[in-house]
């Protein structure tokens, strides 16, 4: 497993796209901190980057990479190796290299310009989102052999979590305006990894506004240590479950 993992990581790092991705993140982060009038405003812009760009790049790059290395995967399958090992090594390699890219591209600038709990939560959430969306990409790959279809699914999943889910929640909020929805909102945010990380960052950034009535329910849950642990555990679940599903379909796949 170690050998395959090493090979995958080296292959990805040699791949120019991840280097470009790292440079792009670094460029955006540095310019955001240097151009905005205050570091706090820079953080707000970075938040959009983390919630939108990072999942998109991770999901598309991982999907394409897995499809492109299908010959290499087939070769490995013909060797006396467990399919589980092959699949997990692929996943591990992608997750490690993309996380590394994120750490260099966003983590370093944030630590330089905004090294406080807000910055830490931002980096941690970004890292989790990276791995979650690699896992979601694997799920999409597991669904279909067709590369175009697979990428389509990956983009659809990204679109759902980044945009459509929140729009649906907003719609529900207005449909059920007369009911107390605070607790339902807490449960709902666990169904979307992007929302989970956004809420964690929101609690750091807009704590004053959140101290209002509705905020109180959220703050009591997400603000407490147990709440923080539970929500990061939720993100962990979001990594594990899609990965297990994809592993199951990979095991049954007729190469």
């Amino acid at each position, binding site marked *: 497993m170690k050998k395959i993992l090493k090979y995958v990581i080296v292959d990805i790092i040699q791949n120019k796209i991840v280097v470009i991705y790292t440079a792009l993140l670094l460029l955006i982060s540095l310019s955001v901190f240097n151009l905005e*009038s*205050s570091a*706090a*405003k820079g953080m*707000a812009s970075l*938040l*959009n980057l983390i*919630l*939108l760009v990072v999942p998109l790049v991770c999901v598309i790059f991982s999907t394409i990479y897995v499809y492109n290395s299908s010959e290499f995967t087939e070769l490995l399958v013909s060797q006396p190796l467990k399919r589980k090992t092959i699949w997990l090594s692929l996943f591990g390699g992608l997750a490690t290299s993309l996380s590394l890219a994120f750490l260099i591209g966003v983590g370093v600038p944030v630590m330089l310009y905004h090294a406080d709990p807000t910055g830490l939560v931002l980096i941690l959430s970004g890292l989790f989102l990276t791995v979650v969306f690699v896992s979601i990409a694997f799920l999409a790959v597991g669904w279909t052999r067709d590369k175009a279809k697979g990428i389509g699914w990956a983009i659809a999943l990204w679109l759902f979590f*980044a*945009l459509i889910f*929140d*729009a649906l*929640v*907003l719609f529900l*909020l*207005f449909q059920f*305006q007369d009911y107390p*929805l*605070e607790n339902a*909102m807490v449960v709902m*945010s666990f169904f979307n990894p*992007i*929302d989970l990380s*956004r*809420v964690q*960052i*929101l609690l750091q*950034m*807009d704590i*004053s*506004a*959140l*101290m*209002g*009535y*509705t*905020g*109180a329910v*959220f703050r009591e849950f997400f603000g407490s240590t147990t709440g923080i642990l539970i929500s990061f555990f939720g993100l962990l679940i979001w990594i594990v479950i899609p990965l297990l599903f994809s592993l199951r379909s990979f095991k049954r796949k007729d190469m």
Partner: protein
Amino acid sequence: MKTLRIVLGIVIALIGVQNPLVAGKVYVGKGHPVKTIQQGINNAQPGDTVLVEKGVYKENEIKLNKAIYLKGISFPVIDGGKKGNVMEIHAKGAVLEGFRIINSGQSEMHDLAGVLLVDSYGVTIKNNQFDNNTYSILTQHSRNCTIKDNEIRAYANNEVLFGNGVHCWRSDSMYIIGNNISGHRDGIYFEFVTNSLVWRNISRKNIRYGLHFMFSNNDTYIANVFEKNESGVAVMYTNNVNMYNNYFNDNWGGAAFGILLKDISDGEISGNYFGHNTTALDIEGCNRLKIFKNKFVNNGYAIKISASTLDNEITRNNFISNTFDVATNGTLVANSFTGNYWDKYEGYDLNKDGRGDIPYRPISLYSTIIESNPASLMLFRSIIVSLLDKTEKLLPGITPENLKDEKPYMKPLPL
């Protein structure tokens, strides 16, 4: 010769009475014939000084009813023993200084205080420590009194049984200066108090309001600090209020305000700093206020303004890192927001006059949505919400069209 001596003696005696330097002194305490403060006051003549030695005096309902200087030496303790008022002042021109006044009574029927000031004129209460009183200083029907440099502390835990730090009722020309108040229900409470000055006080960690006044016209508040009070500051039904250079900080909660202005007319609010409040400034039913040169930093809402307010001028303020700059509850806007600095402004300045060329709309669509549906606050900063906000900025449909800053500043004002 003998008659001359007698006349001279009388003259000297008369001068002696008139001259404060030779006014009588009465000592109270250990080693002196007078053991209680009440007895010391009784023995003194108007104009005398009553000096109280260090020690613990278990007295209550001490009546100070003449113009004497009552001074404690290194903070003698007057312990009211949880019964009645500790001291009642009913005098003209008395001074109370240097005591530690503790444990007034507590009652649901009467307002019991550390020092009760009734029908007094020109009384000064300075440099005292108040600890664990229901009300610390309570004034009624008094004029021209000074409450200065007192340390006022209490341990209130409910709003019914506990009272206020400095509570003035139907008084005029009061000077509340440099007091440090914490742990009461309201820090400073005014009702029907006019022409008064509140200067350099620190009111923090009270369980209701840091400052609370009603029907108190023509008062001025300068350089006070109000922070970490459970519900911030709330002021109501008053005309001609001036507030300069005060700090309103860290008031967190659904019903907590940096300052809540309700039915306040004709005043100036200038040079104040609002930091880390859920709502920094909440304006309801106020008219003709001039709000200028204030700083709003890191608040949830910088200004919440109700549609029932008229003719207020909000100008030359800095709005920095607030979650929402302005929120309102209707579409009618009869207030002016021209000429502020907003850190969220994204316009340009082609003619380089330091003022933006396109108007800034401080109300975001989403703050209006949250106003009608508070639970939706949790979707804030999501992509869909940013999209909605951007669309609304281009084509205002829901937010009030005429709530805008025509000439926003490009750089923060040097305040």
